[in-house]
């Protein structure tokens, strides 16, 4: 175990000459830096008017493809928030045999966007879209039924 020399200078910055200190060289360097940044391209995205595209893997609003869903209940079972609810029955609909969902809703107010339902779905029917504008005026509007899940919810885009 070694003890540090208390007499050693804390700062390792090179010693400045009197002229450097007198002419405020370091300060002028700092001002030159900020001047350069003044004319650099800006990073601000003016959100309602312009929007960034999100990564394809982005976990946005959940969507369900009604035509491929086989009503297996796996997504409902794995959901940690219990935000997915569905009923399925055996029968024929839309020219397709086997089970199909008669009733399906997802409460996006409870969803934590973990992506487990997407992973567990054997037919890739439930998936996260790239939509992130899920704000609603009424809590009930955050609950999407099968029709909204299949066709996507209405987003009112801000226009000038």
């Amino acid at each position, binding site marked *: 175990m070694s003890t540090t020399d208390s007499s050693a200078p804390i700062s390792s910055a090179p010693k400045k000459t009197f002229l450097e200190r007198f002419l405020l060289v370091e*300060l002028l360097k*700092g*001002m030159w830096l*900020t001047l350069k*940044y003044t004319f*650099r*391209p*800006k990073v601000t995205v*003016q959100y309602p008017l312009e929007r960034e595209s999100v990564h394809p893997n982005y976990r946005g609003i959940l969507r369900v493809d009604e035509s491929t869903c086989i009503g297996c209940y796996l997504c409902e079972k794995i959901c940690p928030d219990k935000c997915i609810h569905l009923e399925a029955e055996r029968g024929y609909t839309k020219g397709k045999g086997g089970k199909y969902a008669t009733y399906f809703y997802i409460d996006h107010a409870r969803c934590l966007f973990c992506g487990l339902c997407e992973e567990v779905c054997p037919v890739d029917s439930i998936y996260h879209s790239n939509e992130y504008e899920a704000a609603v005026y009424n809590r009930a509007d955050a609950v999407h039924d099968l029709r909204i899940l299949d066709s996507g919810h209405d987003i009112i885009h801000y226009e000038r």
Partner: protein
Amino acid sequence: MTDFLIINVVIPLVQIGVLLGILGLATGYIVLAERKVLAFIQSRLGPMRVGPHGLLQPIADSLKLILKEDLIPGSADKLLYIASPIVVVAAAFTTLALIPFGEGITLFGYHIPGVIADVNVGILLILGISGLTTYGIILGGWSSNSKYPLLGAMRAAAQMVSYEIALTFAVLAGLMMAGTLSMVGIVEAQLDMGVWFIFVQPVAWGIFTIAMVAETNRAPFDMAEAESELVGGFFTEYSGMRWALFFLGEYTAMLVMAAINVTLFWGGWLRPFPNVEALAFLDAVPSGIWFLLKVTTFLYLYIWIRGTFPRYRYDQLMALNWKSLIPLSILNLLVTGVVMLLLA
């Protein structure tokens, strides 16, 4: 009789009216420019929503401030609380009357000078009156009867009084060159000499520029406001129009200090290199424009400095003044005197 009335009453009144009208708008736009430049330095865009590129933001801001509730803390000393922003603004506005904005123009057969009052002790009067700002700040901080404003006011008082010494000594060096205290006379002295005083007094200019930033309580010397440690400094308790008055005073003081700097060291309304005949075509630009251009540059410098440097610690602030600026300014004064004596 009518001539006397027009020259001594009407013209100054019109000048004052025009100046105050422009100033109200200019202050708003300096604030906007500040927000914009700070944003640019940080790779942001700044205000963009009100008007094209946020150009109407000052109008929206002032409307908001006017409509805001006028709040006076229950424990505050009402009279002083109301009086202090007025003191700050009045002091700042009064100094504005002594700033020469240009050579003056002749309109309807009357000569309108570029300055409202050409007092023969102009610069002394400016420094004296702007010293009153300290009272406004101390009264504002004290009468609020709250800890942060009091701390801010105490810091401001110590800082402004200390930096006034360095500032005055720097001004004195320029005055020795000019041989007059009149603001107009200082510019005319530079015209006679054929060179701006910055070229003969660079050290004094450096001291003045640092001291003027400190004197107007601007970053990195904004100990009086110090948002991150004192909430809002001496105007923590103020809101609405009274708060706006403090702001108006601060920005007017900035403007006045920039104007003094320009007048004393950068030739006031003179064009660049007033002694070089080859540049005579620059005289086509009105003198007022040159002055405005120079003042604007200094206002930009204020904002630029604010966007670059972190705030000084209080002891560093005092050390800078008492250990560096004041000895340096006295030394500069001494050297100036000796050189002038030898050259005379």
